[in-house]
């Protein structure tokens, strides 16, 4: 049983009163009584399809219960007890602390499964919720990751770096290794409650922990768009926010991913919905110009991280017109690997490493956008599949550099 000292005495008493539960549903984003009522209804509908109906506890932030629009406590409306947990950190704050609170509650209640709904639960259908619960409760999966409705240019850091990199390193083809909605088994909850170092603001580590720990992983289509996060102020902040923890995770799991060869698809629940169209104007020239500006100014910095052959390729790219601008998948994969290594070796300040990657990421976005701006959903999927394969193909390069960084020293 996990150490419960981190929980307040009030919450510990509440959990003790509740006794045992089979399922914990955590909704950290619910802020009002109305949203809480909606969520309860949806969770109830979702659980109608799960047999046998598990005894469930809903954990939510304190604020939702104190909303004057909700009847005090309203236990009469609910088929299962609900309990507020300590305040959840706001988006962008330390999420690992929020997850720890939810996992502690789940562990204390002895739940078989813990489902975290980080996106707006009122937009999630009962079926979607069911797809997060059922694989864990009925089929023995340890982790269910989300699949969101992906527009071409949504969650680009996930499409361009996180997903293909996780696939190549950990051998699991997950569309969204990082997301807001997950299903966890009791085993994985206990694993995640083990003391760990600071893990940043994005829940990037669940998929890697599960893959390295030999846990069963599945993914579920939730039929909702990628949840709107509190957007970082600019692209470089987004790169730092997502890729910093990712590179740290790679360093932590180095012993694991070096043994993995190839990748396998994971069981997927539900069907992918139609791809929604973007509303904005796709103008890659600004991204290309940002990359050229980076090339003109950051060559000294890049030469610390990248080998000369890559720099030559980048020089060639600067001479291409925006419409013909294409960053080869192999080159992009090697660039990401080189930066992950520079992050590990601390070739310079880690903030500088992530900052210097930003213009190159913009180059990838420009290249990707130029390729898929009018492509159909299937073509976009094929494009991302090719990118994933390229990361796998270049993995030996990364392993070699990781093991013998000096041998490849640029």
């Amino acid at each position, binding site marked *: 049983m996990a150490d419960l000292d981190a929980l307040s005495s009030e919450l510990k008493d509440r959990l003790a009163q509740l006794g045992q539960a089979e399922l914990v549903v955590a909704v950290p984003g619910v802020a009002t009584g109305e949203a809480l009522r909606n969520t309860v209804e949806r969770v109830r509908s979702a659980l109608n399809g799960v047999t046998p109906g598990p005894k469930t506890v809903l954990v939510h932030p304190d604020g939702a219960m104190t909303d004057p629009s909700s009847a005090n406590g309203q236990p009469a409306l609910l088929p299962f007890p609900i309990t507020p947990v300590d305040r959840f950190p706001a988006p962008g704050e330390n999420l690992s602390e929020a997850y720890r609170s939810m996992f502690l509650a789940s562990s204390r209640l002895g739940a078989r499964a813990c489902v975290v709904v980080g996106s707006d639960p009122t937009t999630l259908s009962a079926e979607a919720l069911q797809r997060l619960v059922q694989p864990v409760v009925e089929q023995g999966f340890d982790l269910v990751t989300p699949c969101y409705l992906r527009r071409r240019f949504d*969650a680009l850091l996930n499409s361009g770096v996180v997903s293909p990199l996780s696939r190549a390193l950990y051998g699991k083809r997950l569309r969204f290794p990082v997301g807001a909605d997950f299903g966890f088994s009791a085993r994985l909850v206990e694993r995640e409650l083990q003391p760990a170092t600071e893990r940043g603001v994005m829940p990037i580590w669940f998929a890697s922990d599960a893959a390295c720990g030999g846990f069963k992983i599945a993914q579920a289509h939730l039929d909702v768009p990628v949840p709107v996060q509190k957007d970082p102020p600019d692209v470089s902040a987004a790169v730092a926010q997502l890729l910093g923890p990712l590179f740290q995770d790679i360093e932590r799991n180095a012993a694991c991913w070096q043994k993995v060869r190839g990748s396998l698809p994971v069981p997927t629940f539900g069907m992918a919905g139609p791809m929604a169209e973007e509303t904005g104007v796709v103008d890659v020239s600004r991204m290309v110009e940002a990359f050229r*500006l980076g090339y003109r100014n950051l060559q000294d910095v890049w030469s610390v991280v990248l080998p000369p052959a890559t720099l030559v390729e980048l020089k060639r790219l600067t001479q291409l017109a925006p419409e013909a601008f294409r960053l080869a998948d192999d080159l992009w994969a090697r660039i990401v690997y080189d930066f992950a290594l520079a992050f590990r070796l601390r070739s310079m*300040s880690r903030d500088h490493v992530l*900052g210097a990657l*930003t213009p190159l990421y913009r180059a990838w976005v420009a290249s990707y956008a130029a390729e898929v701006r009018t492509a159909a959903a299937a073509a976009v999927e094929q494009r991302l599949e090719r990118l994933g394969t390229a990361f796998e193909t270049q993995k030996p390069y990364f392993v070699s550099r990781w093991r013998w960084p000096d041998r490849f020293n640029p």
Partner: protein
Amino acid sequence: MWEQAQQALNQSSDRVIAGLANLLPGIVALLVALALSAAAAWVLALLLRRFLRGIRFDERLEGWGLSGLADWSPSKSPTLLVTRTVSWLVVLVGFLIGIAAFDAAITSELAMQLFRYLPNVVAAVALFLLGNVLARFLARGVLISAVNHNVQYARLLSLGVKWLVLILAAAMALEHLGIGGKIVELAFGIMFGGIVLALALAVGLGSKDLVSRSLERQADKTTAPEEAPEPFRHV
């Protein structure tokens, strides 16, 4: 006459020989002090090098964001820089002790003055090195940040920051050395003020059009159609 001249010559050569004979123990003492200090420096450098390599000093420095120090080090190794600095300091101290062995007031006084001045030299060198590392770190940070914000004169900005910090460090180092006195302070004040004024003028004049365009956009905001946002979402 000839005898008197010969006597005077003999006396002066006696004085020279006596002076040389008086100096000889001091020279021997200086050589011994130098030899001993060189041996001590060698042993100390060896021990220090082993210790620093043991604690992976070079990697730790990089971790603390002081990787710029490697560029100033022999063979790109700050460990070597530290050990060589320490060993040369020991040799210098040995030299000063050797000088003090001369039985002459002037050499003793010189040695004492040098001893008193030594901490200032060490502090000045440390200040300048630290300033250099800081300048490179800040310059790189500004360069990367400016590029990521699409600032066209990013390199200029970065160079400005680098030289500002370098000049500040140099002025502080010179002040520690007691060189220049008020002139350095005055020159630094004039130069720093001049740079800030020049930058203010450059930004003010250079961005005149930018500001007016921005104000015009603000004024037309209600009538003009809004520019379509980019569809890219990164997180």
